[in-house]
């Protein structure tokens, strides 16, 4: 057989294989884009079972869009009546047992179920996407596979026609499920949701998070000598802590799917080193001025440790 024929054959086979791979990736990206659009356009409700930190919580979940603003409502069905409401970009938590009302003016997530980044193409250096039909249920399964050790893998099950989320799993670095959200009794929700589910008289005693406007990251009294690949700053602010009255600097970073926070304060009283619970890891270290920096988030231990190690005091401003 002439060598030129073998060369042509290899070339054709190579093109076919690479085309098939590209088609698969395109399909997964398209499905994720459909999921993101569904979460911006559709009204639906379900019972959501959250498995986190070894315990399962059952919530009545409602999702809706009104006047272009997203609403979400979760109500604890297991006796505590704990209620979480999202109105556009404000999250309100109402805890009837302790009569606590907490209002977050700049929440880190876009949805209680899962955040899907707007520009998937921007994060394809950090994640690989694969789609496959679910053989038993006629649904779609999307694998979101990290390309490094700084983020967790995810798997999403979607309804085949409507692209509604059915199940979301998060896996640790040993490929074990560390979080699961499963939705059943999923159905369209034509009802209008209450704008404010919490008793208005409690608003006066509410605790506010991120109420002050964000500041430029350059205002921080710490610097990141290196940032983790793919993580972008989302928010920097200084906020008072209600129990101590101290002020803490807070920098939120996200890669689109995962997020982590860097905190620095002078009198934190936090034990240094690595701590964890379920999918959450935290790493604290003392800076030369005695302040403590803590990196915390639903990311692998390596990510929080690396970012904390790369956090230093900012050089004092020159007059």
């Amino acid at each position: 057989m002439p060598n030129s024929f073998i060369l042509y054959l290899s070339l054709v086979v190579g093109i076919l294989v690479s085309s098939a791979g590209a088609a698969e990736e395109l399909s997964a990206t398209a499905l994720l884009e459909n999921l993101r659009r569904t979460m911006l356009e559709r009204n639906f409700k379900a019972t959501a079972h959250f498995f986190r930190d070894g315990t399962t919580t059952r919530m009545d979940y409602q999702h809706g869009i009104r006047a272009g603003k997203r609403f979400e409502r979760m109500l604890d069905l297991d006796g505590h009546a704990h209620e979480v409401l999202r109105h556009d970009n404000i999250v309100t938590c109402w805890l009837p047992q302790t009569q606590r009302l907490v209002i977050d003016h700049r929440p880190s997530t876009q949805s209680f179920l899962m955040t899907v980044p707007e520009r998937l193409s921007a994060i394809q250096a950090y994640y690989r996407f694969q789609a496959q039909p679910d053989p038993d249920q006629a649904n779609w399964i999307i694998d979101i596979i990290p390309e490094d050790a700084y983020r967790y893998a995810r798997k999403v099950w979607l309804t085949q026609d409507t692209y509604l989320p059915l199940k979301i799993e998060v896996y640790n670095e040993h490929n074990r499920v560390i979080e699961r959200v499963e939705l059943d009794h999923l159905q369209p929700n034509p009802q209008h949701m209450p704008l404010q589910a919490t008793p208005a008289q409690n608003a006066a005693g509410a605790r506010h998070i991120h109420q002050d406007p964000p500041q430029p990251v350059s205002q921080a009294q710490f610097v990141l000598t290196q940032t983790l690949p793919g993580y972008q700053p989302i928010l920097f602010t200084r906020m008072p802590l209600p129990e101590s009255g101290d002020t803490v600097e807070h920098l939120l970073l996200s890669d689109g799917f995962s997020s982590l926070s860097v905190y620095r304060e002078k009198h934190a009283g936090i034990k240094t080193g690595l701590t964890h619970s379920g999918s959450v890891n935290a790493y604290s270290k003392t800076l030369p001025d005695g302040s403590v920096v803590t990196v915390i988030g639903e990311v692998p231990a390596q990510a929080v440790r690396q970012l904390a190690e790369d956090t230093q005091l900012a050089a004092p401003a020159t007059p």
Partner: protein
Amino acid sequence: MSNSIHEQISCLLDDELPPEQATQLLQQLRDDATLRHHYHRQQALRMRLHHEPTPPMSTDFLEQINAQLHPSRPSMQSLKAAGHPVNWSMGLLALAAALLIWLTVNNMPQTTSLAPTTLAHTSSTHAASHARLREYLQAHNSSRYVGRPILLTAHR
């Protein structure tokens, strides 16, 4: 039992009690059997509400409280679990020795009782550290961590 204590126990179970109050309440639980009984009932009720298996009434509850008040001291149960046989005669001997040392120390001039202070300090440091990490988590992701007890433990 006052309503205030009821509320404090409720907050302790929700992991929402300030560190100093948590330390005080744990000490009260250690010393008051009625209060301990109430704590167990509340805990069992919550477990049922969450459809979790109800833990049996713990016989080593005092040890658990002591462990929380003084985390570095190994419990008898943990020694057993680690395969260390419990020698009761040695235990009695140690108790007698401790009593002798205590009497000696208390009769010495300029005696300072350090243990309770250290114990309370260690406990409040742990509790303060947990409380602050909890506050950080709530600001990191309010929809997940507000009103939800989460305890971060050291990596082994």
